[in-house]
């Protein structure tokens, strides 16, 4: 790390406006060779816009983008890649029907008239070995889990000999072990002299990786720091602009009568023989690795997947085969995949908000006034910040999308709410708001199930914790027995492994 080194890629006094609204106000920002520069800020602070400008996807309204001190010679993502500036997006840029190898060599295939499959496969294998990845070069992207796709993206960037690598929340979709591999890889790239931009909402990752930190708030740089100058608390405070008290609400739930009783519940092919109970006014956390069957269990409960087993609401056996039947029994599920399963990104806030409760808004003719009234209420109750209320939901920031999804799910006033990854990809300020909503639900006597990969979240919110492993219930913890070590032990299945993987679950 050499602070005197000339920047490889630099923004000078960059401003960006969309229509009449300026969203970046004079940003100075530089990436240097052999350095990891973390860019942090709340959702909507302007991180994505800065990354898009650096990567050549959009042009600044004013200001300069400099590569090696000269105006950047590219105005598209493809030209930027050719110049060695590679962006790894949160939504991956991979062709799902092609194989890993075909994706990595896409546009630069080896061979003259005929493709040299063997050489490309060997090259791919070498890259994947370098990444300690078990992915096969011939696997189709479609068949790979999200975490493996991320590895393929990194391999692709390596294959393109990136000088500047811009990573948009790469760890958000990775499991613990994979995050470790990612970090090792980032260390290696840094040692090779690559300039890296890293964003994450997990501040402990920033502490661990970043040589330099830039904090954004509302489109302006509010803090610059070198490694060690800023604590995680300090980062959070700088991002939010106010002191953050404990972001978790105090636990004070008094669990009431039984709301749901599940016995011998199976969701083929993964979840087997799960039994648990849920009381009124309690928050039940479900922890476990990605792929341990948490989401499958939840989707089985609300009728999104075929399931078998015994389920009782208030002592009466219920059978649920669809989300509608679940809603009729007072159950609602908030998906972890808000962009693909939660919200219609090309529709407005109003159309999204009322979609699952449309029969309440008039029959046979819908009352737009009542829908608008519901939206006004939701915007106020859930603090949804939208520049315009008739905008498309896809243009909202992630945090506001999540608040809208929460408002939509709660519009049916369910007795039992299952929230899958309530705060994935969301800034710390919005997180604490969502925790407060969850807390308020429990205080009102509703039952909440929180599925989360975020350990502090599980520990901070839950009255009881269920841990899943390989599709089965590995254990249950309550009250004093809820601790990070206890949960991690159950998650990993062994005490030894647990000791090695302390943070991410």
């Amino acid at each position, binding site marked *: 790390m050499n602070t005197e080194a000339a920047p490889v890629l630099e923004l000078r006094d960059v401003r960006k406006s969309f229509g009449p609204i300026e969203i970046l106000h004079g940003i100075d920002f530089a990436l240097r060779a052999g350095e990891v520069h973390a860019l942090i800020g709340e959702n909507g602070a302007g991180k994505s816009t800065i990354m898009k400008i650096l990567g050549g996807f959009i042009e600044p309204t004013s200001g300069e983008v400099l590569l090696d001190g000269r105006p950047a010679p590219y105005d598209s993502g493809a030209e930027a890649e050719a110049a060695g500036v590679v962006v790894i997006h949160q939504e991956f840029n991979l062709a799902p029907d092609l194989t890993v190898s075909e994706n990595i060599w896409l546009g630069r295939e080896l061979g003259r008239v005929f493709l040299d499959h063997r050489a490309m496969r060997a090259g791919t294998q070498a890259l994947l070995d370098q990444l300690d990845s078990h992915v096969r070069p011939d696997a189709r992207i479609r068949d790979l889990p999200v975490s493996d796709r991320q590895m393929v993206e990194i391999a692709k960037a390596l294959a393109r000999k990136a000088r500047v690598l811009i990573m948009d929340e790469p760890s958000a979709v990775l499991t613990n072990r994979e995050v470790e591999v990612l970090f090792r890889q980032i260390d290696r790239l840094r040692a090779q002299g690559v300039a890296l931009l890293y964003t994450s909402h997990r501040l402990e990752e920033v502490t661990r990786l970043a040589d330099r930190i830039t904090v954004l708030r509302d489109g302006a740089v509010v803090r610059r720091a070198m490694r060690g100058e800023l604590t995680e608390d300090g980062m959070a405070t700088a991002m939010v602009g106010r002191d953050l008290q404990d972001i978790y609400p105090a636990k004070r739930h008094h669990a009431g009568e039984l709301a749901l009783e599940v016995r011998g519940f199976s969701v083929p092919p993964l979840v087997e023989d799960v039994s648990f109970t849920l009381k009124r006014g309690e928050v039940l956390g479900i922890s476990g690795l990605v792929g341990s069957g948490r989401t499958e269990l939840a989707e089985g409960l609300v009728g999104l997947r075929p399931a078998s087993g015994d389920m009782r609401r208030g002592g009466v056996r219920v059978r649920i085969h669809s989300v509608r039947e679940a809603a009729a029994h007072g159950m609602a599920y908030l998906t972890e995949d808000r962009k693909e399963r939660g919200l219609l990104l090309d529709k407005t806030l109003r159309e999204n908000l009322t*979609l699952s409760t449309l029969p309440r808004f008039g029959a046979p003719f819908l009352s737009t006034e009542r829908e608008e009234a519901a*939206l006004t209420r939701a915007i106020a109750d859930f603090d*949804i910040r939208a520049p315009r209320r008739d905008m498309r939901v896809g243009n909202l920031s992630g945090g506001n999308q999540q608040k809208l999804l929460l408002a939509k799910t709660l519009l049916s006033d369910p007795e039992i709410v299952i929230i899958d990854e309530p705060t994935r990809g969301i800034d710390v300020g919005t997180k604490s708001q969502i925790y407060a909503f969850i807390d308020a639900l429990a205080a009102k006597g509703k039952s909440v199930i929180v599925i989360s990969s975020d350990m502090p979240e599980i520990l901070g919110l839950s009255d009881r914790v269920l841990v899943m492993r390989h599709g089965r219930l590995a254990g249950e913890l309550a009250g004093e027995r809820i601790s990070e070590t206890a949960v991690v032990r159950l998650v990993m299945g062994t005490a030894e492994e647990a000791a090695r993987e302390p943070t991410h679950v």
Partner: protein
Amino acid sequence: MSDAALRPATGFRLPGLSALGPLLALILLVVLGAFLNDNFLSQGNVTNVLARSAFIGMIAVGMTFVITSGGLDLSVGSMAAFIAGVMILAMNALLPAMGVGVPLILVGMAIALGAGLLAGLGNGLLVTKAHIEPFIVTLGTMGIFRSLVTWLADGGTISLDFAVRQLYRPVYYSGLFGIAWPILVFALVAIAGQVAMRHTRFGRYCEAIGSNDKVALYSAVNVDRIRLLTYVLLGLLVGLATIMYVPRLGSASGSTGMLWELEAIAAVIIGGTALKGGYGRVWGTVVGVLILSLIDNILILADLVSPYLNGTIQGVIIVLAVVLQRRKTAA
């Protein structure tokens, strides 16, 4: 920022350029037609154009719902021919028992609607229950209906009994307040379609499913039932169109309704409905239908270009409409 969002949108808002585009094209065509031929705006010609638009129009309104919810139906043209064949054969067969009279016509109409409902139900069930791509399902049924009507006609023409034809004729040739029945029925269908698309749950669900069927499923929408309903509705409208069409010629053959499916789909697309679904415009479809029949009419009246080139011009317009849509989404 959130203050602006708290205020409900008020006041009149102009429709976007994408909605105005087809309408402008339609107005241009009318002006062009009036300029080229004095007879263009005569009541006779206007009635002729609108009445001929009506069949495709009713089908295209139904098609709008199918496409909006992410589906497609290629079978409507041959379905119309098949329904016409069945309807005429049934009426001829019932003639000795019932005699020439209004009841016979009514039974014929009921049979047409019933056949349309069943045909749409078949398409819809294959799409939703057997999980076959709508393109494949309706490509298959398109061939089936077409060959069935050819078989029923034994390769020739199925003709309605002459006496019945005389009684049935006014359904196409007569009207109310000087407006032909097909035009009236088409107008009613269009208005009902517009209301259903914009102001009922059914329309909203169609758009939601076409926009992202997974989100719809997770939002407690009965995706399969809505999809099925769109095909059934389209089948019924094909039946209705056939009811208005049969009195025009009084016969059906293997070439009845040829290429109607493509005209209907083209009208929907020209009208601004997204082919990939999620966004439906019934008014746009009506405009699209009128544009297509006006081009036909102007070419015949104006004698500038050979009417044989009608298809070429329609094709250019369809491609142009999609190019303009793309431009809009890219911006």
